[in-house]
């Protein structure tokens, strides 16, 4: 798994590539928590995620909870079909804000 963090205006974009599982999800969790320290809107690009398990979803839920506490927006973008399947299995597609592209979030701050 690879995590790439970049700033796009007032938005922090965390792009995740590869497989997120029990071995790699701590790295994702750490990246999300670190990114939220900036107190700016956070977008997680899941377009290149080949696989995500419950530990990866847990990392996303923990970040969502932290973002709510900080009152900053937390959005999932370009969610791959495999990741969307797992999100839907957990009935979390109504819990997360999900958009089709990173660009769709750039108007927010």
């Amino acid at each position, binding site marked *: 798994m690879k995590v790439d963090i970049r700033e796009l205006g007032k938005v922090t974009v965390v792009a995740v590539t590869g*497989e997120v*599982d*029990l*071995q790699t999800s701590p790295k994702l969790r750490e990246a999300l928590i670190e990114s939220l320290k900036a107190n700016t809107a956070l977008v997680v690009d899941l377009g290149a995620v080949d*696989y995500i*398990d*419950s*530990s990866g*979803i*847990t*990392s996303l*839920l*923990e970040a969502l*909870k932290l973002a709510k506490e900080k009152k900053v927006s937390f959005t999932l973008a370009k969610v791959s079909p*495999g990741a969307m*399947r*797992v999100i839907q*299995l*957990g*009935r*979390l597609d109504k*819990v997360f804000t999900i958009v089709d592209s990173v660009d769709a979030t750039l108007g927010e701050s």
Partner: protein
Amino acid sequence: MKTQSNLLFSLRVPAQADRLRLIRASTRDALSALGCSPEWTRDMLIAIDEACQNVVRHAYGDNFAGDMVVEARIMGKNLEILLRDFAPCIDPATVKPRDLDDIRPGGLGTHFIQEVTDLCGFLEPPAGGGNLFRMVKSLECPPGDGPGETGVDEQESAHEQDSAPGQDSNGSGDGTFGREGTLGKDGTE
């Protein structure tokens, strides 16, 4: 006449997080060779990965690393996965999916397994100890049949193996269904 095995693969690995990717890759290759669709394969990967993850996280104590064995078999029109560990027996009643209305991290894996399999649950502990978890999913295209065949045939999916995974063929693992369905998927609850 030589008897044809219904075993697709058997994998014995240390119950470590860094082996989960290997298990997924092996499963993906086997199911692809079988002609399963990417969507069907994806769901089965979720179930197997989450079950193995439970072993990695919970079966063995912090100071002891044990093995786990994953076996995949064709049982009639179904795929059967058996996952064995060699840890102390657990109480299956303690393995429950969480309430999805309670939005919080954790506890999702068991729910995922329930959602994507047709049958799942613990079998009686095998001879020699450990835990034996079984998952069954109806194949989309059973070998020798045309497409569109679905539905678990319990008669055909009945546990027919002579021994539990990780046990030699002289073992007495009878694989009764006494404990299966603890996760609520045996159709008897």
